[in-house]
């Protein structure tokens, strides 16, 4: 193939996009990603390995205590030439260095909130409000049998700006999870149109 010309294989025109799924421990990130993903979660141990750790060649089965962090990962084929990836951010503070890497280039993010453990999602809201330029929405995950909170109360508890969309979802429901992703894209689209009119 002549590499100087544009690819003639239509497969090479395939592009990918990414949505970040954030929120604290136990708020339903894994459930939401698995509700819509067409692939099983990846074993992402290797992602964590930092440069300094990589040079240590440990013998197999030699009692190595590998850092295992559940990283949520999902993929959705939207069109034959358009893939959407979902990346969950690790909850543990010591893996925050990964947030920037995972967020870079994303079209937007959703912060999942469980009203019974709302404090678990403070850090994620802070991150996207202060340390990131990504458009983001907040989705309150409704679990069966849990008391419902008024969305206005949730917004107040999170000290969430009025311009950040706040919706409800059921992370176990594929339809609801798709709605959440649509909410992210819609929000990103509205901001993109504002910043680039015409």
């Amino acid at each position: 193939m002549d590499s100087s010309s544009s690819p003639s294989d239509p497969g090479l025109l395939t592009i990918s996009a990414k949505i970040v799924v954030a929120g604290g421990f136990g708020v339903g990130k894994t459930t939401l990603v698995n509700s819509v993903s067409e692939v099983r979660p990846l074993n992402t141990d290797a992602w964590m390995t930092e440069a300094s750790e990589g040079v240590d060649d440990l013998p197999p089965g030699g009692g190595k205590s590998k850092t295992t962090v559940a990283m949520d990962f999902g993929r959705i084929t939207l069109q034959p030439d358009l893939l959407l990836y979902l990346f969950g951010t690790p909850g543990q503070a010591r893996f925050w260095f990964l947030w920037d890497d995972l967020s870079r280039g994303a079209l937007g993010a959703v912060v999942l909130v469980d009203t019974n453990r709302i404090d678990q999602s403070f850090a994620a809201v802070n991150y996207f409000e202060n340390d990131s330029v990504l458009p983001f929405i907040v989705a309150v995950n409704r679990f069966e049998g849990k008391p419902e909170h008024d969305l206005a109360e949730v917004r107040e508890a999170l000290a969430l700006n009025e311009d950040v969309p706040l919706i409800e979802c059921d992370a176990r429901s594929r339809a609801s999870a798709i709605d959440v992703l649509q909410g992210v894209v819609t929000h990103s689209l509205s901001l993109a149109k504002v910043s680039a009119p015409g």
Partner: protein
Amino acid sequence: MTDSAKDVMTVSHDDKSDGAQTKMRSKRVRPYALTGGRTRTRHHLLVETLISVPEFDPVLAESLMPESRALYSRACQRMSIAELSANLDLPLGVIRVLVSDLAGQNAVFIHPTAYAYQNNPQVLERILDGLKQLPV
């Protein structure tokens, strides 16, 4: 849909090596040693960036280090940086350097991402349409 992208490779086995770099490096080395200690790349490689092999070259494959060869083979199925890292059990940083090197030899193709289009409205509309059409 399940992940049917197993280990089946459908690659063309023509022997064209047309000027491809054929450095002989076969010694198994440690992850960041095999990148020469480099952790940065010339290419912009996001975790979701897709990598594919336009034309598999078995001669080139033979000349690669085991890790690069494995990556080269895997990428025949078109795979994201994140999936390559997970499947080959190599850190994201190592995968990025190896992919960048292979791209420098025109051995792999780095697909653009939505971000490369600056997440422009047309691309976002396509994504939104795609989500709306997903079977529930």
